[in-house]
Structure formats: structure tokens, C-alpha cells
């Protein structure tokens, strides 16, 4: 993977686009309902719209940290690539949660600990094996035995 240069923070960013997109969905959901239901959504949407407009106006005025709209779109794939470690990690967490419902919390955890430790370069193989065993034992003792959290169990334990 290419080493990433930290670019200037985007002045507008993708956060308002995500939030406003969700806001539109929310408003479409309450359209035609009673005043109170629509009213609160409309109030939030108005505040969000005004603030997003202020951010967009400022971004345009200041040249969005030297990045025009076309360049911004063109660089998205590079930006996504530059955050691949975080994205892979988030994907691994989703896989871990799905794995829990398939093979149970304990086994999924026993797999995910070494995977995370290898991915994050935690040390030599014996160290990773030892740490994984220790952390899995800790998770078992703490969450399943002491706190008795009803986390998913493997099919052969049910």
C-alpha cells in the first residue's frame, strides 16, 4: 500500500452530504403526517440546511483548501485507498459480528484477536499466539463467566 500524505482537511467534506442525505430520507418518511411529527424534522432540516449552506459558502469563498469540485471528485478513490487500513479494520469488525452469529462469541473472538494483532503488527508469531490465548481467556472469564452476558453461543454449545 502507498504511504499516504496527510492532505489539508477538506473544508466541507462528506459528512454534511451524508447527514443531508439522511435528512432528506427522514423528511420523506414523515411527509404527510401530523404537524408535530413533520415540525420537528423540518426544524432540524432547516438548521442543518442553514449550517450546511454556511459551510459550503465558506468552502467556496476560501477555495475549499485549494481543491475545486472536479478535483475533489477525482481524488475520492485515492482518499479511500489512503484510508484502506481503517476501512479493512471496520470490515473485519462487521465480519467478526457476523461470525459471532455463526460460530458463537468465543470462537469468533478466538479468531479475531490474532487477526487484529497480526494486522496491527503486534509482534512475533509466538507473542501473537500467547497474547491471543490470554485475551480470549480474559474475554471468556470476564464477559461470559463473571458478567454472564448472553452473547451468541456456537451451534454445538446450544
Amino acid at each position, binding site marked *: 500500500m502507498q504511504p499516504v500524505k496527510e492532505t489539508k482537511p477538506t473544508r466541507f467534506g462528506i459528512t454534511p452530504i451524508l447527514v443531508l442525505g439522511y435528512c432528506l430520507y427522514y423528511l420523506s418518511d414523515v411527509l404527510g403526517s401530523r404537524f408535530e411529527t413533520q415540525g420537528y424534522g423540518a426544524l432540524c432540516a432547516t438548521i442543518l440546511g442553514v449550517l450546511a449552506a454556511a459551510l459550503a459558502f465558506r468552502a467556496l469563498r476560501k477555495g475549499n483548501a485549494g481543491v475545486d469540485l472536479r478535483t475533489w471528485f477525482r481524488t475520492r478513490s485515492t482518499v479511500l485507498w489512503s484510508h484502506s487500513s481503517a476501512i479493512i479494520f471496520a470490515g473485519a469488525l462487521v465480519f467478526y459480528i457476523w461470525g459471532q452469529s455463526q460460530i458463537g462469541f468465543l470462537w469468533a473472538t478466538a479468531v479475531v484477536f490474532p487477526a*487484529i494483532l497480526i494486522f496491527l503488527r503486534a509482534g512475533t508469531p509466538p507473542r501473537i499466539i500467547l497474547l491471543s490465548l490470554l485475551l480470549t481467556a480474559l474475554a471468556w472469564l470476564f464477559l461470559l463467566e463473571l458478567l454472564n452476558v448472553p452473547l451468541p453461543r456456537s451451534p454445538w454449545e446450544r
Partner: protein
Amino acid sequence: MLANLSEILPLLLINLPLIAIGVAIGVVAGALPGFGASNTLIILFPLTLHMDVNAALILMTALFVGVRFGGAMPAILINVPGTASGAVTALEGFPMSKLGLGGMALGVALAASAIGSFASGLIAITAAPAIARAALEFGAPEIFALALFSIVMVGQIAGEDRIKGWFAGAAGLLIGSVGVDPMWGTERGTFGFIELFDGIPVIPALVGLYAVAEVMEIAQRQRGDIGHVVAITKLAISERARGILEGARFALKRPADLLRSTAIGSLIGALPGAGANIASFLSYQQAVTFSPDAEDQAKFGKGNPRGIVASESADNACASGALVPMMSLGIPGSSSTAVLLLVMTAHGLNVGPRLFAEHTVTAYAMLGAIPIAAILLLFLGFAASFVASSLTQIPQPIIAAVIAVFALAGAYAARYLMFDVYLAVAFGCLGYIMRREGYPPQAMLIGIILAPVVEANFFIGLRQGFGSPAIFFTRPVAIAIWVVMLASIVYIARKKKVAQLRDTEAR
């Protein structure tokens, strides 16, 4: 109360070991995301039914005190607040940990928590009826104004850019209203997920915006892509102990911050529905406003221990404050006081205006347990901080692995739904993007937490004003809140500008 002092004091002394046990359980429970005061009280509830009523309630009150400090430990050390109000402590505590000052941050939190609890306990004992009367002056328009005040202030101070902060806060207000509309039962913004009909659960949002986003940051750093890998300084045992003591000394040297935050916490705790989140955020904002100089103000968000003093003392004071309306009026101010109300009722107590008259000894023994628990917290909390501070010595990959597994288990434990765990990862991705783009996730979190309070009080206020929004701007207490909010916005903005000018000149 004085007439019953001869009964109350021996009762408290006999139950001293129970107070210590309650504090210890509270510290551990508070440190676990998803296992707040309410959950622990519910778990302990069946056990207390076999106990003497006074002993049971003293144990529960001591647990209340311990939980507050417990929530600060993971917030400071691994940026995973155990409770929603611990999110404010994480704002300053985690940057301190990154600088190798985790022990000191724990010491500050410990002393502030103990003093906040001690002072508010004394306030509750002496001024319970007066506080309850003052709290009744706060109607829907005032609570609405107060909640907005918190969101606006957090938006202004949590990040570098106040417009982005306010945007995040407003987004939180929208996301926090997801679910079934409280007035008419209309479903809103749920994407059809039945799990969201009750609203966005706070714990998964909290775990996602803080813990999951943090492990994603660690993953990005550890793979050598951006930023600097946090260097771990090996500290000797004596140095760790010295760090905690230094932190406690720092807090003790800030009596103005402690008193102000305790007063805010006690008053807000007494307001039904307001809760510790508002108290913590508001007193944090006041600490920023009352910065002695621009340099001190510039340190906020980067590891200013004054922020921890403010949030922790207010949070603990709020716990005692919340007991006042619950005991004297029968109105629980938070979910944990609601559980406590249930426990008291199950023990045959008539909670409400006649409680202090009919069960004087029990009522005052409960309040009297607070200052004693605060003193014990100093010792037990020191031991817990000492053990917990060793967490800062653990390498980042191990921390990331532990946070990932335990935080996600915390998200699950709140409602026992796998959906919540997926939700936490979704919030984690959002939190990661927000951090990268300068939108403070703390502002979004306070928006999510307070959205039901804002929405409910907005419409109750409108009904009280027969549809006219003028009611929010004409009542004296509401006017005072708006004026203080505007003055704070202007004052903080001016201070920031002065600091920036000085910075430019210095360069």
C-alpha cells in the same frame, strides 16, 4: 433531621463496610460500557430484598457514587466512556493519556469526583426541600432552552470550527429523534428496522463514535500511514502513584472550578429529565468560559485537566442532586433514579413529599451515605486508578484488540441485540469520517442524547403556550438561559480570536 442524628450516625457507621462494597462495585460497573448504574442496580435488586431496608438503600446509594468515577476510567485511558456523561471527560482525559499523563488525569477525575459527591451530598442533606422547590420553577420551556444551551455550547467548544460543531449537534438532534414519534406514534427515519422504533440506543452510538472510531484510527496509525504512532513511556510504579497524586493536587487547587461545577451539577441533577449529560457539558463549557487566560482556553480539547475537574465534579454532584426530586417529590430525574425509586417502593417506602416526615432516618441515612462514600472513594478509587493506569503501558495493537472486542460486547449488553453491535460499527465509521473532516463527534453525541428531551419539551412548551413559540422567550428563567447562552457564545468567540491574534503575532 437533627433530632434523629443519634439514630442516623450509628446506622451509617454500622453500614460502613456496605458503603465500601457499594463504592467498589460501582467503580467496576461504571468502567464497563453498557453496565451503568441502572443495570447494576437492577442486577443487585433481588439481593437487596433480603436485606434490611436501610442497609439496602445505603448500599445502593454508595454504588451510585462509585459508578460516576468508574465511568471516567475507560474514558480517560482508552477513549471509551463507560457512561454518556463520561464523554466529556474523554474530551480532555484521552488527549492527556496520549501525552503520557493518564495517571494524572485519573487523579484529577478521582479528586473532582470525590469532592463533587461530598459537597453535593452535604448540599442535598441541608437543602433538599429548597432544591426541590427551585427545580419546580423549571418547566418545559426552560428545560428546552437548557438542553439547546448544552448542544450549542458543546458545538462551539468541542472542535476547532464552531459551525461544524453546531452542524454535528444539529445532526445529532435529528438522529436522536429517529424512531416512533412520542406524540402520534409515527415511525421516522428507521429504514424499516424494528430495532430502531424505540429510538437510537445511546450506548451503541457512544461505543461507535468513540471506541470503534478510535480503533479505526489506531489501525490507520499502526499501519504506518498517517500521523504518528503513540510512543509508550514506561513508567515505574512510584511514578504512576505520583502521577495520580499530582492530579488530585491539581484538582484541589481549583476550588472555583470545583464549587461552580458542583453547584451546576446539584441544580441540574434536581431537574427532572435533564440529567448528568447536560450537567457535565454545561460545567465543561463554563470552565472554558472562565479560563484565566487565552492560553489556558486554547488547551481545551487537547488535554486540559480543568475540563476533567469541571465534568467529573458536575457529574458526581448531579447524582446526588437527582436523588432530591426523586425522594422529596417522587419524580425520578434519570433512568438510574427511576430504578432506585422502584427499589425504595419495593422495600415499602412511600416515596414522595411525605418521605422525609414518615421515614426520616432512612431518607437522611441515604443522603448521609453520599459524603461517606465520597471519602471512601478517595481510597478505593486510588487503588482502582493505580491498577487501571497500567493500561497506558500496554502497546496500542493490544489496546485496539481489547477495545474492539469489549466495546462491541458493551454495545450488545445494553439491549442484548446483535443489531446494536452493527449499529455501533456504523456509528464508528461515521465518527471516523467526522474526525477526519473536523466535525466533532462529541457534539453529535450530545445531540443524540438530548434529542428526546429537546423534542418532548419543545412540544409540551408549544402546548403550554397555546401554539405560540413566544413562551420560550418570555418566562424569566428561560430568558436568563438564552441571555447566558448568547453571552457565552460571544465571550468564547472573542477569547478564541484574541488567542489566534496572539498566536499570529508570536509567529
